[in-house]
């Protein structure tokens, strides 16, 4: 096992070096995505399987796509401006990153033998939350407020992205219209893979109550499948002015807030759960958040509207 861990550590460092030193942005994005995949492996070795799921889904997949879109837009602008060479900020940025990493390593080594942690308290109170995955218990029962605020922050981020659209395109469809050959491999993949991806995403969402998983990872998979269908041109992105889109986006956080006020009435505190109703309420919150999260993640990656509402 130590040989595998050592090899993993060496590979991670090599990939990090390649990502920093790559000649062009696309090679760097390739390095970043591969780095994310190996980082998921590292998390598994550290027994953080929920984190490994999130890293593989969001850290490597969706963030990689975000960087890819950014790189292609910068590439277009850079070719027009003619400046694709290395900037002088690279070396200072690398040194600063190395300094921060060194400081973090020192802090980790300076931790006391038994680091201060609330994990035993969580384990002691896990039975009262009626879920068996301690991470889900923390996210949706003990620190449900943080999860609510995270969902709202995602909506704010989406509004921020939408605000980048130009005036004539406001309310229109994000991204350019995609096409692919109707009998080609891309259209075939976009027809065959999404049903499998949707089943896997729904499964990972459902199993998060007792085993690693949850709504975030499930929503990421569903959003990735939706984006795949859009990339193959089998469907078009909805105009952001549509009422159903906006209702679906806010429905999840609103349901979460409603459950919070319900807890205020029945159990005495905002987002407290009354005895015996904990699991149904948690499932209700997750079911309400899943479509909203899927839409938010997909729309964040599609970007600002680039065209009007006509198809």
């Amino acid at each position, binding site marked *: 096992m130590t040989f595998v861990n050592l090899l993993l550590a060496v590979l991670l460092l090599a990939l990090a070096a390649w990502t920093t030193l790559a000649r062009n942005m696309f090679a760097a994005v390739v390095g970043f995505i591969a780095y994310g995949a190996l980082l998921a492996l590292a998390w598994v070795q550290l027994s953080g399987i929920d984190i490994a799921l999130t890293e593989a889904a969001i850290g490597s997949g969706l963030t990689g796509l975000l960087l890819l879109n950014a790189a292609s837009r910068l590439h277009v602008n850079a070719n027009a401006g003619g400046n694709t060479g290395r900037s002088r900020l690279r070396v200072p940025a690398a040194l600063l990153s190395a300094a921060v990493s060194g400081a973090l390593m020192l802090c980790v080594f300076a931790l006391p033998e038994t680091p201060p942690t609330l994990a035993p308290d969580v384990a002691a109170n896990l039975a009262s939350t009626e879920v068996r995955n301690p991470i889900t218990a923390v996210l949706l029962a003990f620190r449900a407020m943080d999860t609510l605020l995270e969902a709202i922050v995602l909506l704010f981020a989406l509004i921020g992205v939408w605000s980048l659209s130009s005036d004539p395109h406001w309310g229109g469809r994000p991204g350019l219209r995609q096409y692919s050959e109707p009998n080609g491999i891309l259209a075939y993949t976009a027809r065959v893979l999404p049903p499998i991806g949707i089943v896997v995403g729904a499964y990972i969402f459902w199993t998060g109550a007792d085993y690693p998983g949850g709504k975030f990872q499930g929503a990421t998979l569903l959003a990735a499948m939706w*984006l795949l269908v859009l990339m193959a041109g089998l469907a078009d992105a909805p105009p952001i002015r549509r009422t159903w889109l906006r209702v679906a986006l806010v429905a999840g956080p609103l349901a979460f807030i409603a459950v919070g006020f319900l807890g205020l009435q029945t159990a005495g505190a905002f987002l407290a759960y009354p005895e015996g109703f904990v699991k149904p309420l948690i499932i209700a919150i997750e079911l309400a958040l899943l479509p909203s999260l899927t839409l938010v993640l997909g729309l964040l990656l599609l970007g600002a509207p680039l065209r009007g509402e006509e198809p």
Partner: protein
Amino acid sequence: MADVLLAAAGIILVTVALGLVPIVRGASATDNILAVQLFGTGGVAVLLLLGAVSGAEAIVDVALTLALLSAFVSVAFVKSYPAASSDVTRSSAMYECRA
């Protein structure tokens, strides 16, 4: 049995690392895209082997997620890597994915 599985995981990681070498030396867009695929597939294989060794069944979920997302990322790369279209005109064996 666990040792055999761990050795297999180590060998796959070494193979993936060797696949990194031509990329570091500077490679075409096609090679970069294939490197992403290699890391995804190699990562799935190593995850499944590690899951068999440690007995944690949830690792299979991570492997499922990684497999789906690496397929998705490969498609995204082919659609947005600008140099890839010049690769297409150069090598006739590459499948044209843009209409």
